[in-house]
């Protein structure tokens, strides 16, 4: 039987605010346990939450970037359950009236076709603290530094039909939230994590199958593998005559499998109700306009600008703008020196990317920053060095962190552009190769490349190729 996979994602993006969603405590990562939790975060008696205006601004930014509707009067609700790292015994979230309503995002599916994924909603909520199980024997430690960290939970419709699509959507969302500067996207620190709702159905059916929810996937690789495993598992269950049960599952990366965490029967009744401590959250049109006016340039707009302003191909423009750091790096390279966009694009996408890939680095971690790259490219542009030499200079820059000019000078790599010097080398090569000259003059045109190679070798690669070509042929032709 042919099966179709149906996936919806819930993405938790930690909003990059300095302070928490309902208190003035810092959100900085990595502090000593419980040093960044104030009375409000600790849920002490009598304290009250106050909404951090910055989270509203960031949520509106998200809505504008995804063509989502913005709820004029949204509402915070309490999600009640007991857990030691949930200080109040409830999480303040949004239920019936989320701040962000329906929107959409376009991705490329596995076959490079565009596909629009509907965003159901995005709502604001506070994160819980952290239970530390492995630090003390027989006891669990509670660290409430993370309690009250602002999250935007972005819920998609079940429009994704494969693990590949799910990853494409998650990656695009990851790039977007960083693009619009609402989330640092750090997956190791948990700033961006996914829950996947996975079900399968007979191909062609329009009825959704029973889903399982896989919690807390904090890398794209885990997302893909967890979905793949889960789809296979569900197919096995159905083809074995069984039924998929609605449940929450956990992905175990070490064993590469998902495991049942709790069934529908064991599911909590969260007893949601509007939080009486927080009046409805009003977002006025004037506020939205203010956010819009200060919106960072969106990826799609930037792509078009790259095509128009820099005369790049659509494909190159998409590659360069898919991640904000790449586009910023590219434009910083152009800004540092008058580099032609074409040259900068080729080098960023080619030489820089391949070196980053080899070293497993992100662009932010690149040993060669945009200014340094521009310092190299300008030497290609002004014919000081050839592109080939430039690659070896970049290698050295990558290792030593020294600027291009210093390396070029130290190694004497400046291109020979002096026509007299090149002519002298040509003359010497011709004199040393009388037989090849004779063959060439007898009609074996291809031998010109032999002479180019010989002169280049004699110049240790420094002869300006343009000049060499110009001067060589007349001399060979006599």
């Amino acid at each position: 039987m042919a099966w179709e996979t149906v996936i919806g994602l819930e993405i938790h993006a930690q909003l990059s605010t300095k302070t928490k969603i309902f208190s003035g405590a810092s959100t900085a990562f990595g502090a000593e346990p419980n040093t960044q939790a104030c009375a409000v975060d600790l849920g002490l008696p009598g304290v009250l939450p106050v909404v951090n205006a910055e989270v509203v601004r960031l949520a509106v930014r998200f809505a504008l970037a995804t063509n989502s509707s913005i709820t004029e009067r949204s509402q915070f609700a309490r999600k009640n359950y007991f857990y030691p790292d949930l200080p109040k015994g409830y999480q303040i979230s949004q239920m019936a009236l989320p701040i962000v309503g329906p929107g959409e995002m376009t991705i490329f599916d596995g076959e490079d076709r565009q596909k629009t994924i509907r965003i159901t909603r995005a709502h604001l909520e506070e994160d819980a603290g952290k239970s530390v199980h492995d630090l003390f024997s027989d006891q669990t430690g509670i660290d409430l530094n993370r309690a009250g960290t602002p999250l935007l939970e972005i819920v998609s419709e079940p429009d994704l039909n494969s693990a590949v699509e799910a990853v494409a959507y998650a990656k695009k969302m990851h790039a977007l939230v960083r693009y619009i500067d609402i989330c640092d996207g750090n997956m190791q620190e948990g700033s961006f994590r996914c829950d996947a709702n996975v079900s399968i159905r007979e191909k062609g059916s329009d009825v959704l199958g029973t889903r399982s929810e896989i919690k807390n996937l904090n890398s794209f690789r885990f997302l893909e593998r967890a979905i793949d495993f889960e789809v296979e598992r569900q197919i096995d269950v159905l083809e074995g005559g069984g039924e998929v049960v609605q449940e929450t599952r956990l992905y175990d990366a070490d064993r590469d499998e998902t495991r049942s965490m709790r069934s529908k029967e064991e599911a909590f009744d969260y007893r949601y109700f509007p939080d009486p401590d927080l009046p409805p959250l009003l977002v006025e049109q004037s506020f939205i306009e203010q956010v819009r006016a200060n919106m960072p340039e969106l990826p799609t707009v930037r792509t078009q600008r790259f095509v128009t302003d820099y005369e790049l191909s659509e494909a190159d423009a998409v590659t360069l703008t898919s991640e904000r750091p790449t586009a910023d790096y590219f434009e910083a390279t152009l800004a540092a020196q008058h580099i032609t966009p074409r040259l900068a694009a080729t080098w960023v996408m080619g030489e820089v990317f391949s070196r980053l890939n080899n070293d497993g680095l992100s662009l932010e971690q690149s040993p060669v920053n945009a200014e340094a790259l521009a310092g190299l490219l300008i030497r290609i542009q002004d014919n000081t060095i050839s592109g080939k030499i430039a690659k070896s200079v970049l290698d050295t820059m990558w290792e030593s962190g020294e600027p291009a000019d210093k390396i070029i000078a130290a190694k004497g790599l400046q291109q020979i552009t002096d026509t007299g010097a090149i002519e002298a080398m040509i003359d010497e090569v011709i004199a040393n190769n009388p037989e090849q000259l004779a063959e060439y003059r007898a009609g074996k045109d291809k031998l010109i490349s032999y002479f180019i190679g010989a002169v280049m070798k004699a110049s240790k690669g420094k002869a300006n190729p343009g000049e060499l070509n110009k001067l060589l042929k007349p001399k060979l032709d006599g």
Partner: protein
Amino acid sequence: MDIHTKTLAEQAELLKQKKVSSVELCQHYLDRIERLDSKFNSLITVDAERALAAAKLSDEKLAKGEGEALEGLPLIHKDIFCTDGVLTTCGSRMLDNFIAPYDATVVQRLQNQGMVMLAKANMDEFAMGSSNENSYFGNVVNPWKAGTVPGGSSGGSAAAVAARLAPVATGTDTGGSIRQPAAFCGLSGIKPTYGRVSRYGMIAFASSLDQAGPFATTAKDCAMMLQGMAGFDERDSTSSDQAVPSYTDGLDQSLEGLKIGVPAEYFADGLDASVAQAVEQAIEEFKKAGASIKPISLPNQGLCIPAYYVVAPAEASSNLSRFDGVRFGHRCDNPVDLEDLYKRSRAEGFGDEVKRRILIGAYTLSAGFYDAYYLKALQVRRLISDDFQKAFNDVDVILGPTTPTPAFAMGDKTDDPVAMYLNDLYTVSANLSGLPAMSIPCGFADGLPVGLQLVTNHFEEARLLQVAHQYQQITDWHTRAPEGLD
């Protein structure tokens, strides 16, 4: 010294004229507390040392002719307000060891106004109760008659002021918890408009209903206190940023032309004849003072108690989840696992009435029942509120009894929660609609005080206090004090 027979306003004058010092005044009350409170059990914590140190600082300011409006005046706080460095129990075993690292806004403001805290008052556990029989720290006795309840939940605050252990006290009112004990103890007490006084640092019972307010012997003293308590607080998102008017400036305006509405529903079944008689007498007094009386109707009055007992427990069930034995408060001995820690800590830490309301609240919020109970109660709440708004088109103030009966005997209603809940019959509607309401003494029944309730529209506390003050200019019920307390 008989300075405890003076009102707060009179004491303020004596302090300014240096006829008495704050230290003398506070010491006088501390002596009375030591001598008398064993009869009433109105207080949980007395902090004489701290009080006298603060009084000394106030005296230094007063000596220099400085000091705030309430400088050097003593008060008692209900033990629901967090006080930095001083035990805050909320009347519960759950918090019998809890010392907050912060002051409630109400505490801070009154302190900034120069007031000196003498003690913290007993109360029904987590403010749940109408008789102060639900306190982990024992019953409070009504100073008017031994064996009689002082009302609740702010029973300790009311009993303390009635026994003249302080000139004023703070309380909180979620369904009548200031007005009902004020009525039972022969005091003036005001519950302001929802949002008028910050709830920050006031341990939450039902967040959408809770409001803090003062107890005093006179409306004028209530006005002075409310002046010190009211105002926007950026730490409470439900507090109002509407400007606070002067509550004392207009007190002397006459009642000429005032339109008073009397709801027929307040004089129906359940109202004790002696209470009805006292209230009717009060109506005559108002007529004499130039007010006109208009019969009105609040048709949904009968739905108040059911709506209240859905909304309040629902919010409470969630508000009280933080008392889990993990970070503060009572924790059971030797928990074997997390579930055991939760179950035993909460089973041991909470009393019966609190557990009853948590159960009711968790039930009404649970999946499948939410729409039938909680949502329905919110709709009813709207209807009740609309009734008042309609009435206020025609009248300035609504008048009626504060409670159906005067103070009852201890143990009378402890086995019948619903009978106990009916004590709130006339008071919960003001909480459900967020309106300011006040109780003032208007007579006696069998030697026990009877309370008159006045309600005005939102943020019309000034008018409420003026009407009460004017009534107190032509009557002397508010000047009566329990006997044998010298």
